[in-house]
């Protein structure tokens, strides 16, 4: 899994995908996750980082992350490694 490394994210959570021209808005946790994805972190690593930095348990972090990944994929911001 990876995200386009040219994806521009500003501090305000504004995302611009230069390869499609789409813009998005994300929140603090979303930005945190995308930054980790750009560093090629695995899902497990991301979950443990979220739990480490935010006040949330692992089960909920996992559930929300799966949903977030699904959205990133549907927006074509994230691709599977083998694609």
């Amino acid at each position: 899994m990876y995200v386009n490394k040219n994806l521009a994210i500003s501090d305000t959570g504004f995302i611009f995908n230069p390869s499609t021209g789409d813009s998005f808005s994300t929140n603090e946790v979303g930005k945190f996750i995308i930054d980790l994805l750009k560093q090629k972190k695995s899902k497990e690593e991301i979950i443990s980082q979220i739990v480490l930095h935010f006040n949330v348990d692992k089960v909920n972090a996992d559930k929300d992350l799966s949903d977030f990944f699904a959205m990133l994929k549907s927006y074509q911001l994230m691709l599977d490694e083998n694609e």
Partner: protein
Amino acid sequence: MSKKSYERPYIQKLNTGTMNKFGTKTEYAPVTAIEGVPVKKLIADYGSPVFVISERQIRKTYHEAVRAFKTRYPKVQFAWSYKTNYLNAVCNIFHQEGSWAEVVSMYEYQKAIQNGVPGKKIIFNGPDKSIEDLSIAVDNESLIHIDHLDELYLLVELLENKKKKARVAIRVNMDTGIYPMWDRFGFNYENGQAWNAINKIMSHPELMELVGLHCHIGTYMLSANAYSVAAWKLSDLAMNIQLRYEKTISYLDLGGGFASANTLKGSYLQGSDIIPSVDDYAEAITSTLLNFGFKQENLPTLILETGRAMIDDAAHLLGSVIAIKRLSDGRRSIVMDFGVNILFTAFWYNHKISPAQEFSHHVEDMVVYGPLCMNIDCVRESVTLPLLNRGDNVVVHRVGAYNMTQWMQFITMRPKVVLIDMDGKTHIIRENETLDTINQMEKMPKHLKSINL
């Protein structure tokens, strides 16, 4: 290291043409308390979902309506429309304020009697009155509003065997420039049905006295002017009765139908921005009556049966998030512990829903579903709300009218209804149903008693 507060990750495509969130804070500003009582406490004490009614708001709305009419017209009487909300505690707030009872069935009639309303102050409307019902109403000297000729003949038949005279009115339907025209109730004005019915009643002076005329032109009326037309046509009938029979009609009942601030589905603008105020309705009706040309001593009493506009604002439904899901097309959906079973009005209103706790400024569009295992159980097809989580609470606004009468016991049981009194104290005014409540009405044939699986 102290951890940061967590909000589930969210990403939204910036589309043009979608609702922009700037300045729409009031739409999802949290509502954390009802009349000073915290939502969390109400839910902890009485469960979720729960209906919460404010006595203060009911009395306030009532006083405003009375002021609007009484400052413009000398003889005004309100009658509480039982079908709008017939919880006894609610009815009695209106009765304490001086409202009579307006009922449309024997069930409601009996409720009014049990609440202590004198028979003379009950208006008996509706198309379904049996000979037994009519007999009780005649004995109690209630005001019988005749809906159709069959009812009139039934009443004549009853009264011929009784030694008592009935006090009656007829319901009149008419064209007030409003579509749809409610012509299924009562007698038509334009084609002469109403005048014909009046003549029939006046031909039985020994059996009944025609004391009033009634109309109810529609529901959620956005035009105050339609009431002016209605008031004119009723006045016209009253004046003709005066001229032809030298009989003074003692009251004109303009019915109800005043809109509440809920937003109807399909309405582009917010309900609160387009509905006439109670002063607009009052001005339209009273100025017509005052200018019609009645002699001072013949000025009829104005009766109003407005229900929705009097109670809608006073009730909230509190509920909780059961689940957050993603639909196949990527839309967010949320499942609440209340659905159309107890929020019947969700079928025609886009009810305002507020979160009951603070959130960040991020919001998302979502579909709000109820808990029923049925596809039609949808509370809002599209609403912008903060990033709610399982267990979070929400407050649904303006649910006082028709929900606590039209709710259904389907799949699950109906919840408690709580009243917050003038001092901020809470009272259960209707218990939640239990399995026993429902089961005690069922009977099991002997041969079906045992099963062996």
